């Protein structure tokens, strides 16, 4: 089943082209939509919701055409905008109930679901106070709750970690991961920070300047960059030479070596080299490269 699919999707404004013949698909699970600010992420989401009309091409959500079946799509999709979007003078409970009812949930069920959802996102007693007094972290939670309250099949989360402190960021990312796995709701989450998404996504779509740069599973992304960090007391240069002899790719960063993992044999080669040279090993660590590195490399190739 595809969650979203676009075909030659183009959106031109008088002065800028936000999306340029974008063809992309995403399956169930957590999909990361990555791109710099202005890459076209928000525009894509708005077109998928049927809020913007594309200049050319077509877009589908859960097999429904976003141009002709926008209402049906919005019935089963949740949306958390990037910007602040909460009224200051009513309580989170009141607001989330209201949003549920707009999605067609009857009154009693809306109350129950609002209470449940606010608890899931981590808002407790404070949910009865007016939103105006909330911290940024709490506001983000209310925004997330309103996107989930009608039990959508897919949620679009636009920069959900924006403005959060490191702790809040971790909490939010963990919550998003839970939504995708435990709740069984597919998630499309955008971010301009790649490192964040690699922790929670199954699949990553990278767009730049409205064009598709890359779309692949997260494992494909990180496998390409897996390395081992080796730190020894002395004799880095000897080790480097020995590894090169064995056909491994290694580089020295001051007091440690980064060895690229080609296969399982790379680990043995490092162990043997250290033993043969009689070096005292301080650290041997497996490092998962961040997709940021891949992305950086690819951007340079493109440009």
């Amino acid at each position, binding site marked *: 089943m595809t969650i979203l699919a676009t075909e030659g999707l183009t959106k031109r404004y008088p002065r800028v082209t936000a999306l340029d013949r974008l063809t992309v698909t995403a399956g169930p699970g957590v999909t990361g939509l990555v791109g710099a600010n202005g890459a076209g992420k928000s525009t894509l989401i708005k077109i998928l919701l049927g809020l913007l009309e594309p200049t050319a091409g077509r877009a589908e959500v859960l097999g429904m055409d976003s141009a002709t079946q926008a209402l*049906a799509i919005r019935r089963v999709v949740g949306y958390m905008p990037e910007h602040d979007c909460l*009224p200051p003078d009513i309580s989170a409970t*009141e607001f989330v109930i209201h949003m549920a009812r*707009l999605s067609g*949930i009857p009154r009693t069920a809306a109350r129950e679901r609002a209470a449940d959802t606010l608890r899931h996102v981590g808002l407790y007693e404070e949910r009865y106070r007016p939103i105006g007094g909330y911290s940024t972290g709490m506001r983000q939670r209310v925004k997330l709750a309103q996107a989930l309250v009608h039990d959508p099949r897919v949620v679009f989360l636009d920069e959900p970690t924006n403005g959060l402190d490191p702790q809040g960021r971790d909490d939010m990312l963990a919550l998003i991961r839970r939504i995708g796995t*435990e709740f069984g709701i597919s998630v499309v989450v955008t971010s301009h920070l790649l490192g964040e998404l690699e922790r929670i996504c199954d699949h990553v779509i990278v767009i730049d300047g409205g064009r598709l740069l890359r779309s692949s599973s997260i494992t494909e992304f990180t496998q390409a960059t897996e390395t081992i960090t080796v730190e020894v007391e002395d004799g880095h240069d000897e080790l480097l030479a020995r590894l090169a002899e064995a056909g491994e790719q290694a580089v020295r960063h001051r007091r440690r070596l980064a060895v690229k993992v080609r296969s399982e044999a790379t680990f043995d080669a490092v162990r043997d080299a250290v033993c043969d040279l009689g070096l005292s090993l301080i650290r041997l660590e497996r490092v998962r490269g961040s997709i940021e590195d891949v992305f950086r490399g690819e951007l340079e190739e493109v440009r």
Partner: protein
Amino acid sequence: MSDARPTGVIHDIGYRHYEGRRLGRGPAFAALMAHNLRGAFGLRRPFRAKLVPFLLGGVMLLPALVSIAVMAMFKERALPYHTFTALLQVIPAIFLAAQAPYLAALDLRYRILPLYLSRPILVTDYVGAKLAAMTLALYALIAVPLTAMFIGELVIDLPGPPDTHGYAAAMTTGLILAVFLAAAGLLVASVTPRRGLGVAAVAALYLLTSAVSLVLYGVLSATGHDDEARWALLINPFFLVDAMQTWLFGTEPVTGTGYPPGPITAMLFVACTALAIGGLVARYRSVASR
């Protein structure tokens, strides 16, 4: 935060999916209208949000209570129903100026509109619900004192039949007036996301129309142009609606001078209302496509 949570009392039963009914646009429209109607009176909002609407509601009730008292003591009508709204026109005007920007500007200022539009409703549903809520709020302001007076009259049992015709006329024109005022007020208020500016703009518009109408009327009638002077009265929306009431129900004009022919005033009114509603829809369509 986790420390404050009672342990062993609340069991996390995990996420539950919603299997129940999902209603259509109709109930969503009703929910949105109710939400806005509560907003217009500050219900489920902090205390200070209730202050202005309920104060104005009280001021509207005051003449009605006085009228009931007069009816009870002197057994005669003090305040005819059909003149009620036009005489107290400043109060609905202030109410409109204070509350239309609350309904229109808040969603723009705090950028709540995109959230509404990501729900299964259309822009016209959104505008329609706002318009209906503002209309009902204004109508409540007018209809409640009128109805209080009518009930008072029935209870006191004045000599002769009760003025049911006058009451019906005032209630009908009150609704017509509320529709127009709501549309015009929301249109003006929706131009700016700033509430204060909206309040000032709506108030200024009312003051302008009533002042211009008054000055023109004064000048024209002083120079002997009585027919033209009557047209000048219609610039004030309250007199425009009174002119329609005069034509539709045969009531006495509030201004005491008479108005231009009824069908023309009615057409003028319908055109103004259509223009305001059309403008409102166009305004939100343009905001929505951003």
